[in-house]
């Protein structure tokens, strides 16, 4: 007879693992990735591949040479995920060296300085994007038009105005007719608006919603954060539109820019979002509110990533004050 193994209960474990969750999110990102290949061709492939490779390599190198950890963490999928999300937030014609700087900020500053997976305060991909936006405002705000699939679309792309900048112009001029240049809602939903443009991963709401459905089905995330963000933006933008038609209609607002990508994939990052359902609702509502405020009255046309980063900073506070309902506090029912 072999020996008897002794440990404390429980002696059973579910099938869930960190890898399952990380790769699950990556699978959920695939529809949006394919769509970006379809609209932006080689450029989007170069940006994504560079970003993923740089993130994974940096995490491995920092672990090995700076932290001198024996266990490598690159297999858990989190660095790949950060790389993909960073790539999704970039224009599809961004030079490779700028992408690498973005990866250094994302993995190096955003993640590893805090102690690696699970310890970072801010979403690493957004740290990378925010750093690039501040350091390279010109490159980070010119967006190639869709349909330039060849290598030329990467090196020397024709760029266009994003729907968001059209919205901002309408507000600045106070003239609702500026909004007529916006693509119709169906085109925005499908990402199919050749003159318009945007970051390569955020273009198609449909693909991102497919990802959301997959993650909800696989129980990777819960509905609270995406629904509260999108709902808040819809209501707030709707009220503004009713008060003054120079503000775009709420359907266009939720279908444009990084809103879907942010609400579904960036704000739901496990590490940097609150731990309780109520906390997640507060966080989501605040992100939605800040996004509309920055989009309409801030210096940048897009407010999603800054709204998320601001609320990342509030997450520890939310966790401290918002507690789940303890057993015994739920009232009796008949």
């Amino acid at each position: 007879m072999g020996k008897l193994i002794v440990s404390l209960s429980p002696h059973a474990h579910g099938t869930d693992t960190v890898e399952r969750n990380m790769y699950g999110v990556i699978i959920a990102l695939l529809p949006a990735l394919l769509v970006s290949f379809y609209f932006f061709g080689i450029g989007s492939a170069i940006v994504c591949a560079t970003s993923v490779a740089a993130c994974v390599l940096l995490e491995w190198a920092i672990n090995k040479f700076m932290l001198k950890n024996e266990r490598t963490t690159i297999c858990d999928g989190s660095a790949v995920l950060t790389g993909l999300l960073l790539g999704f937030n970039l224009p599809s014609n961004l030079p490779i060296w700028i992408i690498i700087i973005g990866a250094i900020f994302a993995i190096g500053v955003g993640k590893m300085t805090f102690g690696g997976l699970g310890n970072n305060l801010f979403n690493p991909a957004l740290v990378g994007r925010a750093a690039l936006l501040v350091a390279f405002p010109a490159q980070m705000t010119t967006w190639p038009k869709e349909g330039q699939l060849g290598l030329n679309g990467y090196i020397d792309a024709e760029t266009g105005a994003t729907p968001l900048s059209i919205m901002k112009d309408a507000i600045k001029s106070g003239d609702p007719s500026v909004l007529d240049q916006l693509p119709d809602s169906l085109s925005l939903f499908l990402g199919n608006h050749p003159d318009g443009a945007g970051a390569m991963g955020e273009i198609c709401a449909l693909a991102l919603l497919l990802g959301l459905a997959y993650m909800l089905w696989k129980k990777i995330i819960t509905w609270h954060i995406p629904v509260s963000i999108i709902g808040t933006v819809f209501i707030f933008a709707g009220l503004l539109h009713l008060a003054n038609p120079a503000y775009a209609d709420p359907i266009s607002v939720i279908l444009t820019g990084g809103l879907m990508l942010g609400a579904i994939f960036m704000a739901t990052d496990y590490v940097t979002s609150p731990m309780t359902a109520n906390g997640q609702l507060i966080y989501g509502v605040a992100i939605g509110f800040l996004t509309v405020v920055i989009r309409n009255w801030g210096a940048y046309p897009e407010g999603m990533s800054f709204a998320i980063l601001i609320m990342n900073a509030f997450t520890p506070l939310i966790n401290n004050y918002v507690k789940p309902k303890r057993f015994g506090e739920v009232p009796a029912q008949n």
Partner: protein
Amino acid sequence: MNIRTFRIGGIHPEENKLSNDAVTQVAALPKQAIFPLSQHIGAPAKPVVAKGDKVKVGTLIAEAGGFVSAPIFSSVSGTVFKIDTAIDATGYRKPVIIINVEGDEWEESIDRSDKLEIVKAHPELTPEEIVNRIKAAGVVGMGGACFPTFIKLCPPPTAKAECVIINAVECEPYITADFRLMMEHADEILVGLELLMKGAKVTKGYIGIETNKMPAIELLTRKCAEAFSASEYSVEVVPLKQRYPQGGEKQLVDAVIRRQVPAPPAIPVNVGAIVQNVGTAYAVYEAVMKNKPLFERYTTVTGKRLQKPSNFLVRMGTPMKDLIDACGGMPEGDNKLLAGGPMMGKALTSVEVPICKGTNSVTIISGEEAVRKEPNPCIRCAKCVSACPMGLEPYLLAKLAAVKNWERAEQEDVVSCIECGSCQFTCPAHRPLLDNIRQAKTTVMGIIRARAAAAQKK
């Protein structure tokens, strides 16, 4: 069918009820029976026999050691071999009485007939008489907690009992002893429930059963209609959605009567409920109606690599090894031997540990499943928070325990933890959450007791 369940948290472990259809066998008598003196919550029992004494099946061998305690009866006939120590389920050597088995001679006072005795035929059974007989027979909670049953029937004056809830949930994976008991002794269980209701002076009873035991739900619903249609008692079989830890007392009360027991020190009777395990109801029937003290029980012996997972009617004191051998022997290689199921069972250090009053199962986990995986860093996915049936934040409590911040752990209600293991089961990073939380809970409870003692001195 109106299916109910509890309202916070919960998980769905793989059920693995391998021995569902294995009809209960009577286990062979052991050569030697071992009786730990501490088989219940409370003070250990005090031996009343000495080395060399002759005992019969049903002879008192140790009396209750205090108010919260229970007497112990011999399950075999033979000679007291010695009063010594032996390794029990805690892994430590504890005082035991060891009896060498000779024949199988029962005390004459025990009614060994199969005749079903009903409460109406025994007007001499007043509530006080019922409670006294339960107390004298050493009946304790048979679901594993082993709290003396008679105490639950006499609630403190501040609380008023309104109903008895029979816990037939059996939400632990693998275990099937309660299911088999229901299928084989439904009538006796219902008489036991009636005795419990009469003893607690209530007229409302519930039997909570999860829907993975449909045959039991159907059988008991039919039997209830027959037994209680023309009586002052009203008993309802409540089908429950399959979900762990529904068999936890507080979760069951919430599921069945939609009331939540407040934080400790409150107990279920504070919201009107007295919860008794289905095995306890059967033991109460035998104790009160058949004058048979508690010395045998239904136990499942199971495991994926075990040749023949089985259910046994087993005399207490039988070493687990005897039962495992009757199921085809210990599987090859390293195993984890559990008293109880995989979620809350205790890992044992010896196959010689005897079956006790609370041993509802002997579960053998083999191979890879027996070894814990390496923990990864917490990714703060909050799955433990959603899984916790007590509405706690396991990730936080585990972290507070790791940095020994007992004050904050107390503020975060660590003492409410029922140690069900749902958090650790769910954790994708395989973190040993419950190990840490248990340590915090024990420490904080010690601090609370010390504070109360100091306050009393003043």
